[in-house]
């Protein structure tokens, strides 16, 4: 079987002036995952590595650069699944974790569960030696500005995102 990897960086709003950076971001992620595959690595590790690249890129809405909730904080969700045995792990509403996808994989591999959320996910992360990062370090200037704009009277962030994904 010839290996293949496909990645996406989301279907939300794309700022025209950042188009080239979006393109290079997904390209880097795809190539990172493909290199894993070319070296004989598993599809599971390839998708994890590709997603980590985008979680670390402030341009994308995941990991560092995530959008903010109504209180101005980052809460992230992630899932990973292995088609070989239908094993899967997920986390939701996690804070202060740089790479939620790595935590999701640990849920899959180190617990009997499918999904850990919020405080439980944080406690599990700590037990696995995943270091917490200050919440502020996950917030990009762009995310903060968007959050502030959406707080203005008359703003409706839900309606303004209809049709954008």
């Amino acid at each position, binding site marked *: *079987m010839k*290996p*293949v*990897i*496909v*990645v*996406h*960086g*989301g*279907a939300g709003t*794309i700022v025209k002036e950042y188009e080239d950076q979006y*393109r290079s971001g*997904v390209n880097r*992620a*795809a*190539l990172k*995952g493909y290199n894993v*595959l070319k070296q*004989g690595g*598993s*599809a599971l590790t*390839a*998708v994890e590595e*590709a*997603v980590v690249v985008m*979680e670390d890129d402030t341009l994308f809405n*995941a990991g560092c650069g*995530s*959008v903010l*909730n*109504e209180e101005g904080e*980052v809460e*992230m*969700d*992630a*899932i990973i*699944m*292995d*088609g*070989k045995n*239908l094993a*899967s792990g*997920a*986390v*939701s*509403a996690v804070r202060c974790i740089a790479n939620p996808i790595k935590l*999701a994989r640990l849920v899959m591999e180190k617990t009997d569960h*499918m*999904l850990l*959320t919020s405080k439980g996910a944080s406690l599990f992360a700590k037990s696995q030696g995943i270091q917490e990062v200050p919440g502020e370090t996950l917030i990009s200037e762009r*995310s903060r500005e*968007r959050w502030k704009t*959406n707080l203005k009277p008359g703003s409706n*962030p*839900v309606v303004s*995102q*209809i*049709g*954008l*994904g």
Partner: protein
Amino acid sequence: TVGAVAIDSEGNVACATSTGGLTNKMVGRVGDTACIGSGGYADNIVGAVSTTGHGESIMKMVLAKQVLHYMEQGMTAEEAAEAGLNTMKTRVDGFGGVIVVSRSGDWAAKFSTKQMTWAVVKADVLQFGIYHNE
């Protein structure tokens, strides 16, 4: 939201999806990403899917599993991706995008939104795009 699907040299498929969610969302709101079958699904017998878009709509459709169901019925990865997104638009007025890889290595990157950033590498060739018809 970001995501990836892949098939390795042994024919194993996998998916991964990660997100910060909806901007200015309610505290505690969880969308499709963490929900198996919605934010992603992978099964060596069919293929793997990762989704992005309006989370509540994707959850109503269990979109990733729905796309794989269409493939089980005989659709190609591309046909199944389009069918899944069309059904979501028709049934729940929801928009989004999916990436798919089949067990035979066929792939698709489809979206019903105005744009979705995507990239694929197959046979050492990199392709990518943002807008429709790229």
